[in-house]
């Protein structure tokens, strides 16, 4: 089988083939004999070396939905070519080793990002200029929700008897909101994958920010509920005769 240079894609020919490329002079990684060996894997390795982002490194388009089984297979195939273990023998110099270290480290970072739907989402938005980690004013906090949360906290103080039921109601409402938000995120991702468009990404960024607000609110409500339940339990115990002994 004709093999190609892992760095410049030229066919490996001449007396030193397949160990050194005559076109660019670079020593070649030793290939694993697999279905992707040869030209295809060499090109895959070039892609990692020249990639401007993680999607390019894996040779996939900038989309939210990815075939993770296929990505995993590609990750393994590329690892077989690029890993520093393949450049350890005396045939390779320090330069080849340094490149391998850099490329494998990039590939590892790329794979752990693309593997996780959340990390991929943040990464893709970041590439497009929408940084979801920075809060942008209060725009993403649904005002209505924030107000009813403050009301709930007041009510709990004033009417302790109905407090737990109110909190549970609020929690239910919150969960519904979270679910519809999550559904909206998936919908936006799908639309973006099929038609693209910066407006969709902007909206998605907002939804993601409100998701993180909803999540922190859920934690607060959970904490409040636990306190109320503990108080109720203590009250109940103190009513049992002899419990104090």
């Amino acid at each position, binding site marked *: 089988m004709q093999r190609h240079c892992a760095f410049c894609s030229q066919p490996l020919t001449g007396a030193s083939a397949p160990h050194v490329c005559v076109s660019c002079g670079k020593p070649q990684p*030793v*290939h*694993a*004999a697999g279905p992707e060996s040869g030209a295809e894997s060499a090109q895959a390795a070039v892609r990692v070396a020249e990639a401007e982002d993680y999607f390019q490194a894996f040779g996939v388009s900038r989309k939210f939905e990815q075939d993770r089984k296929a990505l995993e297979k590609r990750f*393994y195939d590329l*690892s*077989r070519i690029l*890993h*520093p*273990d*393949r450049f*350890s*023998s*005396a*045939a390779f110099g320090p330069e080849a080793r340094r490149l391998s*270290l*850099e490329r*494998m*480290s*990039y590939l*590892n*970072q790329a*794979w*752990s990002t693309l593997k996780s739907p959340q990390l991929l989402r943040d990464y893709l938005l970041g590439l497009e200029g929408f940084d979801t980690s920075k809060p942008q004013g209060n725009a993403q906090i649904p005002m209505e929700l924030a107000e009813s949360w403050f009301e709930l906290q007041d009510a709990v103080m004033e009417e302790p008897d109905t407090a737990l039921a109110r909190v549970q109601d609020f929690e239910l409402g919150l969960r519904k909101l979270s679910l519809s938000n999550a559904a909206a995120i998936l919908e936006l991702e799908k639309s973006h994958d099929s038609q693209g468009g910066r407006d969709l990404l902007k909206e998605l960024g907002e939804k993601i920010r409100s998701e993180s607000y909803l999540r922190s609110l859920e934690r607060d409500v959970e904490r409040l509920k636990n306190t109320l339940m503990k108080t109720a339990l203590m009250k109940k115990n103190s009513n049992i005769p002899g419990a104090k002994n």
Partner: protein
Amino acid sequence: MSEKITPFSNVVIGIDLGTTNSLVAHVRDGKPEVLNSREGQRLIPSVVSFVDDKPVVGYAAKRKKVRDAEFTVFSVKRLLGRGFEDVAVGQDVLPYEIVRGGPEGDSKNISIRVGERTYTAIEISAIILRELKASAEQALGVPVRQAVITVPAYFNDSQRQATRTAGHIAGLEVLRIINEPTAAALAYGLDRKKEGLIAVYDMGGGTFDVSILKLHDGIFEVLATNGNTTLGGDDLDQAVLKVVAQEIKESHGLDPARDIQLNAALIEAAEKMKIELSQSETAVFEVKLACLNYSRKWTRSEFQKLILPIIEKTREPCLQALRDAGLKPEDLSDVVMVGGPTRLKIVQDVARMIFGREPNTSVHPDEVVAAGAAIQADILAGNNQDLLLLDVVPLSLGLETYGGLMSPLIARNTRIPTAAREVFTTFVDRQTGVDIHVLQGEREKVEDNRSLARFKLAGIEPLPAGLPRIEVMFLIDADGILQVAAKDLRTGHEQTIEVRPSYGLSDAEVEKMLVEGQKNAEADLAYRRWVEVRNEAEPMLRNAEKKLPDAFRLLPREEAQTIEAQVLALKQGIEQKDIAQVQDAKYRLGASTVRLAELLIKEAIESAQRASNKI
């Protein structure tokens, strides 16, 4: 020495540098095999004993553990890459004296007192590695320069660096540091028939590791790892020792903690008893010394009750590793038991309870790690393209931030090699340096984590505060060891950073030891050659001396006198340890006694014939 030496031989060996025992292995025809030590054994006890400042390693040293306790060092791996504060915490109950200060008197480092001298843990480890190297060279008949050395997966950066340095001092190019459970998995899955998710439960002499791996088409991918670097078989012996020491104190009025020889004898007896109890229901703990005659019967259940709390400490690391891998115990297809203490039934019971399945005890618990190291060595030598290890960093890496907190940069269980970038700037106008403190660990507060390195980004242009932008890249290489590089983003200038490990040795110290090591190696080699020459010459001399009267009887006087002179020369050469003179005299004597030998044989035959004629 062997004559098969080829200067271009490219043998890469695999070394399991253990707390209690070490092994060296290599791959022949695709199969790993453990190499015999110079003592003719498979295991080399990781014990170094000093006789007149000269180190002895292995069983020979282990035999001196009690008699020459003051000059014998063992379990040194527990101290490798650790600082005085770590060791002083108290969980370490090594009987030898640990003193503050490294070779440059730096107070964070530690040394071990041996008689009048002190040695660092790195130096002691290097002595053991040198013995392993020599064993491999003897077994293979070629010089060995390159090695893969295993470390506990949960070893931090300093401990890995220290291992690497020890290898360097021993004259080895360490091609890779690999994790012990990963190595074990490699040997376990070598035939590529095993696929799926496995856990490796690895309890050694001094450390415990658990790794979760995915085996797929020759790829060994570590998903998560966890462990405890101060938990192992030694601790089981210590638990027994504690009970016994108390009894001896009460009944005999002796305090083993104050008597290094007694203490060493008790540790040895505890170890022996532990091994016996893995086979039978009862065992006798016995110590016979001049000062003490003590024996006590133990049942297995009594022993198990005593050590169960220690074995239980492996549960949390196992569960954490599963959580980090996002797996439940039932997702695993096998739990592989590695390390000597996993021979104990109680350890297997605990593993069975943690993972809810029968643990696999089919791999050789002592040899599988060395075998795996040899396989990795073969891969690195370029001989095996089918297999590939993908490993992770065991502990999170971070930086000290304002308020004494650690801000994580690379999370634990991140695939290696990996890199993280951080941009630093100045806080004061015209500030030209920024201090950076790199930490490793899972805790919030700086002081609860391990300090890896401190360095200063120097030579920053004196600009208004916040304007300089220095990008620092933290790279964890395939050995799990940190490398740092910095770049001024404004000017594009690369900055060189000298990262001095918070513990360990400076480059200058390493160089010094390397030179000493080579000197010692040369001296050792010369000595060995002399012994070989002497061993040949001495019988020849004795024989020739005995035959001198025959020479004067059978040969012309002149010829006999020549022989006499050569015998004297040989004798003198041996006395003066002059290899050249001995070799020369041996050669001449051999040539000039040919006729004498012939005459003697002829005489013997004739006398035999006369004797038979008489009958």
